[in-house]
Structures are given as C-alpha cells and as structure tokens.
C-alpha cells in the first residue's frame, strides 16, 4: 500500500482544485458530458465509496462474518481506544511517522542544502538510484531487510567492522529495538524520495533570489534558511503527506518482517485490521480500527497541508 499511497498522497497534498473553468456548453452537450464521466464514477462509487461506507456501517456491528450481525453501538470504538493491544498499535503507527517521515525529510533537506546547484553530471544516475526503493514491492524490501538484520546479517557485520560488535543482535527479534529497526527500513525507503522531491523543487527557485541574498552578504547557511527552505514549503508538505500515510497505513513491510512481534512490539493498525477481520472474525472491531486509522490519516494530512500552505 505504501507505494500505492505514494502519489495518491501526493495528489492529496496539492489537489486543492485541479482543472480550470470548464467552458459553458449548451444544456444538451453538458448532459452528454456525463457519459464521459459515468464509467469512472460508477466504478469509483461502487467499489471505493460504497466500501468505505460499508466499513463505517460494519464498525457499529457485532459480527463474525457468518452469523447474522447484531447492533453494537459504539462498543467497537470503545474497544479500540481502551484495549491496550489496539491502542498500542495506533501508538506504534504514530512512532513510525518519525522514521518514515521526519527523519527522511530532515535527511532530504540536509542533502539538498549540501548538494544544491553544484552537481550536474551524473545526476540522472543518482536520481534513478535514490528513487529505486520507492518502486519496489515492499514485500521484497522486507525480505531483504529481514536478512540484513539477522544474527549473521550485513548490519551486524558492519557494526563489528567498526568496533561495535558488543551491540550486535537479531534486531527485528529484539524486544526494545524491533520497532526502531522496522522504522529504519522506512527511513531507507523514504529518504531518497524526499531528496529527489526537494532537489527538483529547489531547482525551480529563482536563482536571482539566491544571488541577491549573496550580494547582501548572506552565507550559505543563511541562504538555505531564508531562500531555499521557504521555497521548498510545498515539496516538504507533499513529502510529509506521502510518508505519513505510508507510515500509518504500513502493512506489507510489517507482515513479512516481524508480523507484529516480538510480543506485539511492532503491531501496527493495518496488521490488526487484517488479523481481527480475517483471522479472528471480529469484523466490527476491525472496521472500527480501520475507521479510527482513516480519521487519524485525515487529521494529520489536513494539519500538514495547513502548516505548509503558501502564505497569501
């Protein structure tokens, strides 16, 4: 899903109102225009909107998927917010935002500042490489990292090579470090995306702004702070939206690396939605958790858009 959220999130970030003013067409042709819209609208309404509505409906039911459902009122929501298992999963999802979103954005900005405008040759190659983790199925990424993090894996080998042999362990199986190790896979995936976004955004900033600031005696640090950073406001917003959705809705990666373990330390909402609905047959609870997850996504995305809005 994370890759699915990639551009879907991107759109959300900037999609204030796409499209210009459609030209006024006479009544009959405006009706005919509906024919062009209808196929997309039917599939979208029938499979996305109707499903979303159904899930909301399920969240008020007590249903095992076999017996007829009974009305549960808000019981499922109470459960989501009070049962430690579910509440902790939501908390873990929020912690993952640090690794999927905050750290990659910081890395992206740092590298943009360091590299901006002075590297020309070979940039296509580097861009292609840095963007690569974005296009790969997260299942394969997860399998790779499972092995890198293993007892005799590359991570521990690298640590031993730099004299940190004392801290080596099976990272994804460690009670205290599993969530962090998982999060760092997200950092690995998302940093390149942020960097590519910021580099291309920074190239669109009017060079005369930088020159003017330089003439006024602003050093590289101040120029980055007062020219580049404000110019990247929109790109930072988009990166934040994409990566936050990827963090909160992550499923594939967790499913193949830790599957929630050890001892539930890496449970995330999506994993429990799946488990509750399809392994334990508590569909109402799963639906309520999915709804809460969606509300958190919507609140955070709206907050990010508000914070990174262009000043009028």
């Amino acid at each position, binding site marked *: 899903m994370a890759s699915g959220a990639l551009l879907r999130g991107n759109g959300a970030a900037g999609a204030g109102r796409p499209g210009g003013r459609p*030209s006024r067409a006479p009544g009959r042709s405006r009706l005919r225009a509906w024919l062009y819209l209808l196929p997309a609208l039917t599939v979208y309404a029938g499979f996305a909107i*109707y*499903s979303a509505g159904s899930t909301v409906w399920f969240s008020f039911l007590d249903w095992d998927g076999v017996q007829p459902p009974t009305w549960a009122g808000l019981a499922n929501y109470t459960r989501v917010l009070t049962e430690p298992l579910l509440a902790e999963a939501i908390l873990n999802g929020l912690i993952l935002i640090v690794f999927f979103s905050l750290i990659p954005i910081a890395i992206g900005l740092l590298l943009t500042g360091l590299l901006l405008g002075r590297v020309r040759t070979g940039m296509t190659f580097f861009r292609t490489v840095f963007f690569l983790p974005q*296009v790969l*199925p997260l299942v394969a990424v997860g399998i790779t990292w499972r092995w890198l993090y293993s007892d005799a894996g590359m991570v521990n080998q690298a640590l031993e090579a730099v004299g940190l042999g004392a801290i080596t362990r099976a990272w994804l199986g460690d009670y205290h470090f599993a969530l962090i190790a998982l999060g760092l896979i997200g950092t690995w995936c998302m940093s390149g995306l942020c960097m590519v976004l910021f580099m291309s955004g920074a190239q669109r900033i009017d060079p005369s702004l930088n020159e003017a600031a330089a003439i006024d005696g602003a050093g590289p640090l101040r120029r980055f702070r007062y020219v580049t950073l404000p110019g990247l406001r929109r790109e930072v917003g988009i990166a934040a939206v994409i990566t936050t959705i990827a963090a909160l809705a992550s499923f594939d990666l967790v499913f193949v690396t830790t599957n929630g373990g050890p001892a539930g330390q890496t449970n995330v909402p999506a994993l429990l939605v799946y488990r509750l609905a399809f392994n334990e047959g508590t569909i109402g609870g799963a639906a309520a958790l999915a709804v809460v997850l969606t509300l958190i996504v919507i609140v955070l995305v709206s907050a990010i858009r508000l914070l990174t809005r262009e000043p009028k």
Partner: protein
Amino acid sequence: MTTALRYGLLSTLAVLVLAPFAGIALASVHPAGGQVGAFSLPEQWSWSNFALAWEAGNFSRLMWSSVVIVAFVVPLTVCLATLAGYALSILGVWGGKGISLAFVLGLTLPVELLVIALYFNLREVGLTNSYTGVILAEIALFLPFGVYWMQSHFASVPRELVEAARVDGARDHTVLARVLLPISWPAITTLAVLVFMWSWNQFLLVLVMMQDPALRTAPTGLGLFVGQYGTDIPLLSAASLLVIAPIVVVYLVFQRSFVNGLTQGAVKA
C-alpha cells in the same frame, strides 16, 4: 564543500541504497538451503536457485495472475481516468466541482478502510477469488489519482486549441481523439507506468480478496513464500529477485516518467 566531496557523499548514499540488492543478488546464487551471512562470493554459483524458487513458489501461476490483473487494470484505469478528466476539465458537467472533490477525497483513504467491506460485500456476489473483483477494486483504488492527474493535465492545455476545433465543428469525441490525445501521450504514459507499479505491488488487497493461494499475484505469493522458506536464504533471495525484476525493468525504461510523475504532481497543483 568541494565537488569531489559532494560526489563522494552522493556515491556513499548510492552504495547505501544498492548494497542490500547486491547482497540478495549474491545470496541468490549460493547453494540452496544453506545459511548466508552477508557479502560473500559463493564457492560454486548455483543459478539453479531461480528455477527451484520458481517451482517451489508456484510462480508460473502467480506471475500469470499478476499479468492478467495488470493487463486489465492499467488500460482500464487510464481510459476511465482520461474520459473523466476530459469531462470534468474541458466539457464541464453539472456538479463537476463536487465530483472532483469526491475523487480528491479518495486520495487520502487508506486501503485498510476498503478491504474489509470489499471482501464481505463481494463475497455475497461471488467476486472474491476472482480476477474481476480484484481488477475492479484496484481500478477504483487508483482512479482518484488518475482522474486528478488527467484533469489537471487537460486543464493545462491551451483553451484556444479546443475552441478552434469546436469552431471548426468538431464534436466532443473528435476533440478528444484528434486534438487532445496526440498532445497527451507523455501524461498518459506517466499515469500508465504509475498504475502499473501500484497494481504490480498491491499486497493487502490481493491477500484479502484472493483466499485461494493459486490465484494470488507474485508479490502476495512472495509474502507467503517467506513463511514456508523463511530460513532458506538463497531460495528466498532468488524468489524476491524474480518478483522485483519486472518492475525494475519497467522503472529503468520509464525512469523519467516515474520521477516526473511524482515531482510534477506537485507543480501542477
């Protein structure tokens, strides 16, 4: 920072990104069944792991499912998104603003919100364990971005082009086919490769909708392959490479479309 330092930094980062793949590429040619720690050249190169993984994971079936699903999802999504984008952006429909908004809202909905209902509702009408069900669900999932993308693309086309054709008496479908499509191929290609990537990589939706393992796609099958062969690193690495290969090839061919799709998405809004 000197230029040499900058390239040093870039190269270090590139190595950090690529090292894991070099690692599994090397691991995949170690003798099957063995433990592989990290970077090490195998004593004998076991290319047969790819054939073994293909057999063990039943990848003939899985790849077929992936190909069928992608072959329908990509053209249909692009087609529906183009028609809808044309209607919303050029033709103008009654209530168009509200409909654009409804599509945009879909951009933030996580798959998790949809899968539960998709499974239980489609089970009623026999669309679980069916390509049709997965294909329609994926199209619905990708349409918000598709419509948004095509709509903002058409909005960027100079209005004079459309008006001139209209004055010449061109009907709606002629304007689309003769005037707009010929200048829209870059936007359409970008949308197509992005939808290809999302469809190929889709995991949770397929896992839920295809309870029959034989109907699952390559990435989903890979997710369950781990459970069975979790300790056979060479076999697991070979299987991962098999699943990664198609998307990497498409990415390398259309790398510009992928990256531009993302970065331009920002500019357009």
